[in-house]
């Protein structure tokens, strides 16, 4: 089963995404900050990471950098939820492979389609 980790400090977002994605057959784990997410990913890399940028303890940018540094052979996809669209606010992501931005407000359907293009949600890990 495709495993997704979601990092966001907004509990409502975690709640809806977890519920919606699980319903589509994904295995979803949630973290309220970047640090918890990083620890979880280090222990067991997921197939997809969905992360917000502004989070306590470790923000999304730092989380991605840390992952890039500690797991250079990483293959899994990262979706970054962002409020800003300007290129200058996305420059940091150039150094990080397999990363896509999703602009807020995020459409669950659009996210599902993107995931579906990459994974068969019910496929075994």
């Amino acid at each position, binding site marked *: 089963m495709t495993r997704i980790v979601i990092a966001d400090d907004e509990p409502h977002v975690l709640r809806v995404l977890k519920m*919606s994605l699980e319903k589509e057959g994904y295995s979803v784990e949630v973290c309220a900050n970047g640090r918890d997410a990083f620890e979880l990913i280090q222990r067991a890399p997921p197939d997809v990471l969905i992360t917000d940028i502004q989070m*306590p303890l470790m923000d999304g940018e730092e989380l991605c950098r840390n992952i890039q540094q500690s797991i250079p052979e990483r293959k899994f996809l990262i979706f970054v939820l962002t409020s800003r669209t300007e290129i200058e606010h996305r420059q940091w992501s150039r150094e990080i492979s397999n990363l896509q931005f999703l602009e807020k407000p995020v459409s669950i359907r659009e996210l599902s389609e993107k995931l579906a293009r990459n994974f068969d949600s019910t496929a075994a890990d």
Partner: protein
Amino acid sequence: MQSNQRPGLIMIVAALLVMLAMGYLLFDYERNNRVELARGQGIDLVRLLGGMPFNQLVPATGQQSFLEVLKRGQSNADFAYGAIVDVGGQISSEVTRSGVIIPPATIAAEPANWLGQHIVAAATGDARFIESYGPVFQDGGHRGFVRLGYFEPEFGFGYGDVPFLATLMLPIFLLVPLFYLLMRREFKPLKQISERFGKLADPAGLSPVELQPTAELSDFMAQFSGYIEATQNRIEALNKQHEELQMSGKLLTYRNNRIDAILQKFPDAIMVIDEAGEVSYVNDKTHRLLGVEPGSILGKKIREWCNIPEIIPLLTFGDGKSAMQANQNTVDLRIHGEDVSSLQFNVYPLFIPNDDSRILGRLVVIRDVSENHLMRERQNEFISHISHELKTPLNVLSMYSESLLTEGADNEEYRIEAVNVIHDEVERLSNLINNLLAINQYELGGIVAQRDNVRMHEFLEDIFSGFARSKKYQNVEFDLDIPHEMSLVYIDKDLFRIAINNLLTNAIKYNRPGGRVSMSASESPDGIEIVVADEGYGIDQEDGQQVFNKFFRSTNENIRKQVGHGLGLSLAKQIVLMHHGEIDFTSEVDKGTRFFIRLEKMPSHIMDAAAS
């Protein structure tokens, strides 16, 4: 002593000296004459007498001595004595002037020395004699000597000389005053000139010399007076030129000072670099921006004083070129270990007046744009923050509404949850937008407090009950303690409602589950105090007063869990300050926080004056 008497005195002294000199020379001449006479006469007579036989010169008894004839016929007043002595020196015959004793004398035995002269001292007294001596013979044999003595003349004069001297000196005495008077008369115009020269120090007193010249000085005086007149004209012309120069100098100094004062007040550092690449002007701001003493770099080339490699190419831009374009560059520097400054270097060519094809140097204007950079960064940060704060609830709204379309249809429980979340998020968005608008208005200076006399009890109770009645906060224990009788307070009700609202929202949001939120008010002669307290996580020392900074968010995890924008306390503080009040807090971690608002009770007319 007046200076005009000095020549007279000098003349008298000089005349006396002349007279003394003349007297001395006269007496010296007289003495020499007498000595020569005594010597000449003496030796002549000795020769004459030596030619006579000895026995003729020595008279027999009862006969007159030949020497007696000599004495009586002697005209020389200096004659002292005459003697005939034998070979042994014994006097055989003698004649003397009265009172004179012939002194003893030795005559040499050698014939070659028999004739001669010598000076002999008198036997008594100080007198000396010029003695002439010669041999006397008898029958071809040497029988003795003849000795003739004359007084040696002394230097000086006697009373007898006074009439002669007086006669001699009288003309000199008479001539001295005569010459003096004549000289004074002749030199009177020169004295006038001297006085005029004396007045030259005071040009106002200068006028042509009025001449009363003697014939000899006439031409000279006329020319001299003309010269004085020309000099006076020249002095007047020079004075005029001097005044004009002084005036233009003052004007120039004033203009220079004014330009310098303007340039010194200029907020940017200004540097003028001449054709040779040397700094010819620099204002004081250079010290602040580049850390160099303006006085120490004047007249020096850039590379001689600039130790900041990054800016050397900017300052030397256009060095040695006869033409250049204006140039602008911005660099970030750390001067003397202080914060990084962003400096903008603007280099402009300075053209020769009326000739735009040649430059005589360049003007460098250095502007500190750190503040602009900081402002831009803050604006960026603000926009980033606001877009996050606005889009986060929007994101939740979007997701829930989208999920309702699928989940809500058959899940009643989820539908209720989603509606509640949507309601909360809309409220959150609304609060955020209200706070943002209020802050924006405040920062633009657009908020003017519309004050009224407000009854505190009713006002606070109304706000408080809004929270206490809300189903959303039904798990919170509310406690209100406001005295019924409180003075009217002169405040802007709407603004103050935002401030109290924000304090109460925080007290609820950061409270522990089931914790108490209380609001109380009290009055003292000086003013009133409103307290909003909770039993929540508290504010740790690290956060401290930063909680009042716009967009500040604590790093405390419990606090970060709650939705917040970092705007509520910042706005509350601004509103309280607008009312000349103060806001502060006391807090204990994990026990709770008490926020205080203190307002002074002021008569309404003073408040009005303060507000205006």
